[in-house]
């Protein structure tokens, strides 16, 4: 199941979604050993941030709602992690966020020098009032931030988009035009809210939170389908992918790599090995390949 992605050889087509399991070497390595081709680090911000008070992550049964609130040591306080990661044997994507184009550029330039294999711009996180999402719902601002960051980094750039954009295909195109090397879709959907009726209070301390997991899969598939029609750069498809069949579905919508986040909750860290096996079994039974089925849902039926 080896796959070449923007010039790097990955041992599997599966990506660990940003914000899941954090950014320490030992755990990212474990994920990689368990069949993840490309672990993504938790988004790194311009300054130290503790994130929101608990509850921050609640399991709704068919998906999660979370408002972790972009906790980050801040890009200047991660020497220890970079040090440890410097002799890693696996590829990583560093995810970053900022509150302005300047902040994005500052963080990106610094992080790029630390040698991640890819940099992902989180222009799509709904869990903070000041950060991220504002860029991802507008084509012009998405273009601006991608173009500015592209100038200061030396590794391929992935733009991570939000399904809250009124027209995600337009945003993706703007990112491609600005120099993005790949698109990652989608970040959490909604936002949503759950209220505990006994205490009459929203359960999340931040009140609202992003939705992930099985309940957002149809939204993720639609987004990847739309983006595939508007750009020619590769797409990392994620959002509710839990099984090999889910992965095949989003590949048929147009994804090159497939991300997994919430499914770690439902199937454990070994979800990567399981999904890889399910994908290759399915491909074998159907006598086909990843390349052949990519974007297949765009061809005329029968």
């Amino acid at each position: 199941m080896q796959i070449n992605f923007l010039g790097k050889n990955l041992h599997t087509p599966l990506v660990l979604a940003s914000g899941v399991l954090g950014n320490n070497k030992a755990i990212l390595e474990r994920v990689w050993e368990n069949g993840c081709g490309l672990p993504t680090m938790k988004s790194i911000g311009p300054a130290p941030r503790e994130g929101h008070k608990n509850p921050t992550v609640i399991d709704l049964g068919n998906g999660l709602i979370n408002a972790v609130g972009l906790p980050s040591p801040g890009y200047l306080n991660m020497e220890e992690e970079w040090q440890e990661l410097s002799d890693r044997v696996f590829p990583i994507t560093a995810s970053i966020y900022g509150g302005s184009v300047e902040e994005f550029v500052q963080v990106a330039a610094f992080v790029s020098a630390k040698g991640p294999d890819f940099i992902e711009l989180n222009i799509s996180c709904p869990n903070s009032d000041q950060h991220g999402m504002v860029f991802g719902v507008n084509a012009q601002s998405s273009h601006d931030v991608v173009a500015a960051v592209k100038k200061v980094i030396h590794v391929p750039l992935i733009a991570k988009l939000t399904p809250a954009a009124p027209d995600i295909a337009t945003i993706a195109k703007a990112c491609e035009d600005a120099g993005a090397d790949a698109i990652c879709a989608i970040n959490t959907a909604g936002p949503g809210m759950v209220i505990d009726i006994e205490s009459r209070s929203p359960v999340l301390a931040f009140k609202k939170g992003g939705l992930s997991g099985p309940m957002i899969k149809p939204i993720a598939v639609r987004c990847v389908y739309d983006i595939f029609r508007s750009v020619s750069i590769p797409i990392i498809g994620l959002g509710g992918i839990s099984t090999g069949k889910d992965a095949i579905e989003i590949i048929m919508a147009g994804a090159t790599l497939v991300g997994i986040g919430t499914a770690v909750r439902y199937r454990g860290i070994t979800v990567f090995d399981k999904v890889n096996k399910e994908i290759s079994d399915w491909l074998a039974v159907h006598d086909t390949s990843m390349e052949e089925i990519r974007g297949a849902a765009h061809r005329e039926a029968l």
Partner: protein
Amino acid sequence: MITQLMPAMVKVADKDVHSPEFATLYVNQHIDFKPGQFVMVWIPGVDEKPYTISHHSPERFGITVEAKGLFSRKAVSLGPGDKIGIRGPFGNGFNMGIGHKRVAVVAGGCGMAPLAPLVETFQTDKGPEVFLIQGARSKSFLLYPDRFAAKAEICTDDGSKGYKGFVTDILVQKIKDLSAISTPAFDMVYACGPEIMMAKVFDICEVHSIPCQVSLERYMRCGFGVCGACVCGHAVVCKDGPVFGSKMLRTMADFNTRALLKTGQPVPLNEYATWRCQ
């Protein structure tokens, strides 16, 4: 019904005040349970934190809270009729083994909370002989003094009760004594308390080739292995743990050395403790 999903608001049915710092809150609800597992306790408008299930019967369970910070002080101030949100149980719990003849249980301070139901289970189920060592800062911090059938070896930092000194001193001594009679001295050593204490217990056990299990504590958010807040080396404390055995501890980079702050930054354990004191 209490599940791992949305917190269920339940009434505090009873409260035992052990000392000004410690109280146990009881809830008259069924919850699935294995000794060592924990629940997330939500006080709306305040915060949500993990607490070990320290008391359990089919129709009731309890948590024992030490008043330290904002949340735990609030929790200790609650009484019968007050409502709290509970989700869980989470975590793996202790592996109680099969056919153990003699085990040691080493508790430091609030570390008695997860170990108490383990001791009870061992003492009822024609389980192994339990050698219980309980330590605390001083006499008033000793949890559940009259809870167990068998009596415990007590030690306090200030000598206000029992031996003046560390639980680990007693463990070493006992292993020596028993080694004369039988090998290994214990089939398993279970420990919970300050991480430095658990690290010492682990070292002692390694020297004497005794397997051990310890229960770790880290800052937690989700409680079910997704958010990464509680990661310790390659282990996810809320999901792979909180109980870890010797084999895992041998390769767990951050055990007794580092913990993650709320920001996700790894810091030395003492710095983590300082942050927790703010």
